[in-house]
């Protein structure tokens, strides 16, 4: 079996790694430390491993790492940080769109793919856009609400670029700010090195 060097540009950082040809992009990313990319089903059913590959949202379990040679990859962690979360991540936390958090990184990727193309989706469009991402904890209701909240905030900030997102958020949401960081921990999970990689 052939091993070759693959260049992967992940969240703006270039990596060159020697990988066997049967390594999936999912495994390659997790081995590089991008453990926000989750290993769920490995057969393209659950969407937990979703990443942007050259701008397109894909299941990284179904891409061979060598097929991604030279590609730009953006994972959930590449969209925002704990200190500076992406509005979608922030909206997921505020809407309680997280229970165990395992599906969240993939949900965030699919949400961004949706909102980039359709900034004001209907509920049906949201459900369709997230249909490749499975959540086993929630009833999806809060996830749909999280996407809507993200859409509203992104539209608001687009229409009034001067006002920050914090100023744009309502008083009732402000009360939730306190536990937001705890919830984000579930999104950007660095503590699961021991799982199925």
């Amino acid at each position, binding site marked *: 079996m052939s091993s070759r060097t693959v260049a992967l540009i992940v969240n703006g950082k270039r990596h060159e790694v020697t990988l066997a040809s*049967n390594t999936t992009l999912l495994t390659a990313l997790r081995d590089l430390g991008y453990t926000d990319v989750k290993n769920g089903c490995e057969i393209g059913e659950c969407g937990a491993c979703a990443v942007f590959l050259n701008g397109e949202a894909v299941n990284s379990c179904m891409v061979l790492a060598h097929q991604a040679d030279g590609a730009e990859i953006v994972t959930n962690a590449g969209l925002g940080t704990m200190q500076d979360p992406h509005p979608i991540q922030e909206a997921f936390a505020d809407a309680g769109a997280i229970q165990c958090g395992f599906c969240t990184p993939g949900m965030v990727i699919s949400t961004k793919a949706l909102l980039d193309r359709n900034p004001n989706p209907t509920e049906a469009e949201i459900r369709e856009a997230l249909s*490749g991402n499975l959540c086993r904890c929630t009833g999806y209701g809060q996830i749909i609400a999280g996407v809507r909240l993200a859409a509203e905030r992104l539209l608001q900030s687009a229409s009034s670029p001067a006002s920050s997102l914090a100023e744009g958020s309502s008083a009732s949401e402000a009360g939730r700010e306190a536990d937001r960081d705890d919830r984000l921990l579930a999104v950007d999970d660095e503590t699961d090195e021991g799982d199925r990689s």
Partner: protein
Amino acid sequence: MLPEFDLLKPSVLEEALEMLSVGEKAQPIAGGTNLIVDMRSGKLRPPVLVDIGGLHELCCIREKAGVLSIGGAVTIAELVDDPMIERHAPILRQMARSFANTLIRNRATIGGNLVNAAPCCDTAPALLILDAEVELQSATDTRRIPLADFLVGAFETARAANEILTCVRVPIPPPSARTAFEKMGLRKISCMAKVDVAVRVDVDDSESVTNARVAVGAASAVALRVPEAEAALVGGSLTAESAVPASQGLTGEQRLGKGIEKAVRLVGEAVEPRPGSEYKRQVVRGIARRLLSSLLRRDLRANGSQEDPSQGRSPSGFREGGAS
């Protein structure tokens, strides 16, 4: 863990064809949405994969001399987005929008879906009613065959091991053609087809059906056209004053009403007898009736004709509505 294999990465089509011509061991891979699943399960163990996904020769959608040619590695997502597809073959867009989900559509290719030849492959019924043909290329030869001849059986095609499905050729239907597609699965979206139905009717200036196509997917080993159902639709007219001479004492309009019912019955017979096939037969008939009605019957109703309610029973739980 995937089984071990060598991965070859050609930079042009010619190189890929050379790689495939060495023995029968090498297999092409594009989006991998079927192949990687089958390799992970151990069903397939190709020792050599040739990555054809990024080959620019296979990634274009072109229109020339009344034919849309869709490269084998064009993704399902591109079928959703491409303006030429929307203009000339909107049924392909409709089909593509029902295909799995965005994460899969961004990888899965039209060529891969056809070459995999699953009985439930969504691309086949939509392409069959467009009279599509596939182009197969090897290092030494290029051939074109009708899609119906390419699909041999479940997971079986006419492709030789050294060939690549380089493009799908779709004759652009005349403006008089009306098409509709519907898929039924276990969920509304992101599911495999239990049944796919695609229909097309070409209606001339005098509102007569001059040409018809009906295709069914996931109801037999391979997606297929139902020529008897198609024949039943031809000659019917959407208007009471038909240019088509009345035959057997029926006006063109009455013939169309009878033709639709006959087509619906025949489409149901195309369902292969297997456990559960009675259910599929009912579903196929319900969908076929709804699609044909949406294309033809609205005009009929405007002319005062009524569907026989005793013939129109659909399985419960069907969503009502048009074909789009």
